[in-house]
Structures are given as structure tokens and as C-alpha cells.
């Protein structure tokens, strides 16, 4: 499965990818397009990426998590293109023997992804549009 896709994301499928009989905990995170940002109405988000490098950096997020939490499994996918309110932009699932590391690894993955993966986001407002950068974590 590619790390970046234009297709709608299926969180249940991504969660199934990390199943293991040795794991007692699965934590997932989904980023969802909100109808507002800083008080301003949002009708859609347009995501674009640097395709070759985004794949590479998503792989680095995965490898980093596997190195820090050796017993876990992780799946992560980011969607690009035009997403409407309520659609999922990124989905991450982490399975691990115990719950503490599942939460920590999943949180680490989304924080790292936002800081390192070359993906950009344009907010579409009712009367305009603006590129929005993530705030540093």
C-alpha cells in the first residue's frame, strides 16, 4: 500500500493491517477536515505533496516508530487532493503488546509526520483560499 493516495481512506482497513496475536492494544488516529479554522469557515482542504519525497519521509516516520517501539506494528496513509469537511486526511494505526506504547507511538507518528512529510494544505474558504502551515509541535 502506498503511503500517499488520492483515494478515500478506510480506517478499519488500516487498523486491520497492524493486527497481531501478540498485541493487546491498537490505537488509531484520524485527521479530519474541519468546518472552521481559527474561527474562519472552511469548505474544503486541498492537499498537495512532493510525491517521491513524501513516500520516503512517510517511510522514515514508520521506521522511526519501529526503532523506538520495537514490538509494535504501524500503518499510516495520507490522502491528497481536494477533501471536503468530514473527510479523513491522514490515518495512522499502531498495534502493540500494551496500551501505553500504542498511544505514545501513534502520537509520535502524527507529530513527526506533520513536522517532516512534504505535504501542503490550502484552505478553501467561502470567499477565497489560503495556504496554511502547521504550527511547530
Amino acid at each position, binding site marked *: 500500500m502506498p503511503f500517499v493516495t488520492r483515494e478515500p481512506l478506510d480506517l478499519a482497513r488500516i487498523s486491520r493491517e497492524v493486527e497481531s496475536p501478540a498485541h493487546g492494544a491498537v490505537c488509531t488516529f484520524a*485527521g479530519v477536515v474541519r468546518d472552521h479554522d481559527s474561527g474562519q469557515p472552511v469548505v474544503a482542504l486541498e*492537499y*498537495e*505533496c*512532493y510525491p*517521491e*519525497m513524501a513516500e*520516503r519521509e512517510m517511510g522514515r516516520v514508520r521506521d522511526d516508530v519501529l526503532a523506538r517501539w520495537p514490538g509494535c506494528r504501524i500503518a499510516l496513509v*495520507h490522502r491528497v487532493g481536494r477533501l471536503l469537511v468530514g473527510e479523513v*486526511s*491522514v490515518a495512522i494505526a499502531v498495534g502493540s503488546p500494551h496500551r501505553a506504547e500504542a498511544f505514545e507511538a501513534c502520537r509520535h507518528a*502524527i507529530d513527526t*509526520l*506533520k*513536522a*517532516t*512529510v*512534504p*505535504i*501542503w*494544505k*490550502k484552505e478553501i474558504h467561502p470567499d477565497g483560499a489560503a*495556504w*496554511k*502551515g*502547521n504550527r511547530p509541535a
Partner: protein
Amino acid sequence: MPAPTPRPTIRVVVRLFASLRERLGTDRISLDLPEGAPASAVFPALFPAEASSGTGWPGPLMYAVGHAYVTAETPLADGDEVALIPPLGGG
């Protein structure tokens, strides 16, 4: 006195994204730079007005060469693919 030796140049391909892509109207451009130019030389070469204004538009840039992040000081080589990375918006 002999004519000065032409200063050697390199040619790189610059990838542009988001606000930078929209401003130039293209996502890819060839650029000639003096040999030894650092990655940070790309922005003023392509966006002279914004670079001289010192506002740092469109926010702090990162740089990538060959699909990997590099520091602003990294010297470029002929044939490099260089990317200007404006503030990220993934997630």
C-alpha cells in the same frame, strides 16, 4: 591581459510546491547557478523581490536535494534536483 575565464556554472532542477508553485505558475524549473552555490541560493534566484524584501515569504523555508532534507548551506552539484519546502501542512 587575457579575457577572464568564464565562471563555471551548474544547472539544477528546482521543484516548487504550494504557494511557491502558484507564484511562479510552474512546479518545476531549470536554474543555472555558480558552482558551489548553496541550497539557499535558489530562493533569491527565483524570487528576487521577495528575497530582497526580507519578509521571508512564504514563511521559513527548508531545502531538499535528491528527495532528502539538507541544510541551507549544502553546496549544490550539477544535475541536482532541489526542492524549496515551504511550511508543511500535512496531517
